[in-house]
């Protein structure tokens, strides 16, 4: 069985999802169901990974309990740096959550073929990343049990949150994003849950799946409304992706702090979020395609296309880094210039250079097609991107707060074991949900992959199923080219 597809050459358009190019080793619908449903069987490796994730999550939970008992002073906050690992990690996870909706919604609207096999994983990643991110503003509160004060509802306190505050915008943006991305994930899952329901033999599991499938029957009426609703949800989710990280960037840009008060922040944050999200997609998808033996679904062409997107966003992020320096240089503002000098050659040079090397320099390797088509290199690079993007947020948060306008506002920051414990716990929390997801529900959209795979036809084409791409064989039957 072929596990890869040949590179596209000679002016072919890789995003047009013809079956022969997209999935050369997939012959029929039954094969899709069999192979993807087959990934749901738990394995020893999966149990081991889940155990490690739960352990990390418990370390985080225990550390948080300790912090609640001791107070926020247990974390590494030290005036003037009163935002630290929690806010950095909040922005990091929100960023990770962006690639999912980018891949599932924006690439859907652009009809990008390589999206089909990776979007389910990305969507799930989005939901779990936003669930993780949402914990951090609460962790950052001195009295976390009062977090609901930010939600506007009629209350006995007779006070309302200030709607001009970026923190209130965050609440609206993150909750909307979590709701819409979870809905988008679930709606896309319904036809696949119906497939699992129809294949299931265990009555208990069948009943659960039947409930989750909502009685879906694959009728023409259901598909007609489903495809429209999915399109409109994608159209809503697209500006939502751009808005959410813009709103997160306002948490910084609305302050007068050097290094933060810049109009470049919203596009800079959005590009960074997409870049980091694609990095995490590689981190997850590459081992997954190997472990589940799904290399003929996530082909090298798919990885190649995603790597190009990664390269593009890396260059946008790199341009934003350089623009920040240029703006500081040309502004004539001494505080701004001092801050950027301190960032890259002073106190925080080590963090800034980790960021620049991981996010700007290493991704340039993706100009090479050979490396774009090398899963091992993409995986290694993705780890560097994850590290680099965490440090990008470190470089945004800490150097600005530790080097404001006057010398008494100059200080340092050193995270404690509490910060590291909660950071580790966030990874445990994220991977715990993700690992549970991949063994309960299909990691690839079976119904959507079947759209690309040619259906069986009685007249004439069974000798080469790849010639059966709709629209090329029998226009009388296919009607519209896909």
């Amino acid at each position, binding site marked *: 069985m072929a596990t890869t597809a040949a590179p596209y050459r000679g002016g072919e358009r890789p995003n047009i999802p013809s079956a022969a190019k997209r999935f050369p080793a997939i012959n029929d619908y039954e094969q899709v169901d069999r192979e993807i449903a087959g990934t749901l069987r738990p394995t020893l490796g999966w149990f081991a990974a889940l155990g490690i994730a739960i352990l990390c999550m418990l370390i985080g939970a225990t550390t948080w309990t300790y912090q609640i008992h001791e107070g926020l002073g247990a974390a590494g906050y030290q005036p003037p740096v009163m935002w630290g690992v929690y806010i950095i990690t909040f922005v990091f996870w929100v960023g990770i959550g962006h690639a999912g909706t980018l891949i599932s919604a924006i690439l859907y609207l652009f009809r990008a073929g390589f999206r089909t096999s990776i979007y389910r994983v990305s969507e799930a990643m989005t939901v779990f990343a936003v669930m993780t991110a949402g914990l951090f503003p609460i962790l950052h509160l001195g009295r976390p049990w009062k977090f609901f004060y930010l939600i506007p509802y009629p209350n006995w306190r007779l006070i309302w949150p200030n709607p001009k505050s970026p923190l209130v915008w965050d609440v609206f943006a993150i909750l909307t994003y979590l709701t819409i991305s979870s809905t988008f994930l679930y709606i896309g899952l319904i036809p696949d849950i119906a497939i699992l329901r129809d294949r299931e033999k265990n009555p208990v599991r069948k009943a659960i799946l039947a409930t989750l499938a909502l009685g879906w029957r694959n009728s*023409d009426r259901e598909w007609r409304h489903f495809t429209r609703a999915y399109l409109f949800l994608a159209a809503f989710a697209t500006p939502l992706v751009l808005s959410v990280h813009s709103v997160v960037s306002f948490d910084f840009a609305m302050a007068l702090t050097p290094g933060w008060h810049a109009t470049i922040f919203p596009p800079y944050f959005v590009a960074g979020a997409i870049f980091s999200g694609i990095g995490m997609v590689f981190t997850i998808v590459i081992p997954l395609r190997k472990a589940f033996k799904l290399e003929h679904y996530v082909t090298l062409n798919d990885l190649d296309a995603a790597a190009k997107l990664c390269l593009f966003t890396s260059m946008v992020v790199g341009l934003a880094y350089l623009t920040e320096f240029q703006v500081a240089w040309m502004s004539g503002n001494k505080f701004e210039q001092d801050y950027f000098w301190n960032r890259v050659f002073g106190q925080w040079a080590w963090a800034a250079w980790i960021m620049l090397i991981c996010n700007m320099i290493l991704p340039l390797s993706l100009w090479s097609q050979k490396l774009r088509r090398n899963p091992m290199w993409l995986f290694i690079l993705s780890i560097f991107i994850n590290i680099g993007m965490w440090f990008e947020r470190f470089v945004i948060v800490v150097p600005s707060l530790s080097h404001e306008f006057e010398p008494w506002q100059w200080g340092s920051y050193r995270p404690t074991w509490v910060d590291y414990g909660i950071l580790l716990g966030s990874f445990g929390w994220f991977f715990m949900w993700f690992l549970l997801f991949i063994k309960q529900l299909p990691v690839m959209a079976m119904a959507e992959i079947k*759209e690309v795979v040619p259906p069986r036809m009685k007249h004439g084409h069974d000798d080469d199923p790849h010639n059966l791409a709709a629209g090329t064989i029998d226009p009388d039957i296919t009607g519209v080219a896909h």
Partner: protein
Amino acid sequence: MQGVLGAFHHIDSAVHAVEELKKSRVGDITVYTPTPRHEFEHALEHGPSKVRVFTLIFGLCGVTFGYWIPVWMSDYWPLVVGGKAIASWVPFTILGFEVMVLVGGLATVFAMFGFAGIPRLTMTVGYDGRFSGGHFGVWVAAEGNDAATAESILKKHGAEEVRRER
């Protein structure tokens, strides 16, 4: 509900059967496909989905509510921030946009549920588990002579299995 159910393994056979059933007007036709297929949409000639009407109406309601709530909150508990107006429409656009997406998006989903007739509690008549796998199903709601005609058309076009259900 009574009718005839045909299961096809080949899409072209199923499409031809649907076309002939439509011409012979024997009853309402429902087609089951493992994935959305435009061939059947054309054969069945259904109009566009009306989900979009709900998306538009509830999106507009959402944006109105999203602007109204911060205006009301600011008026109820006035805080002068940076010398800006109490009801500042520029920052409130963020809330207006987010609530538009939230309400419009959820309304789209509920409209889809309503039009598609889900959640459905029973699915014993006119469905077969194979239709989510690799088969195409054609259900004709018909009785008596119409059912017999439908049965013969389905068989003529090569249905793997034809059965009457009630």
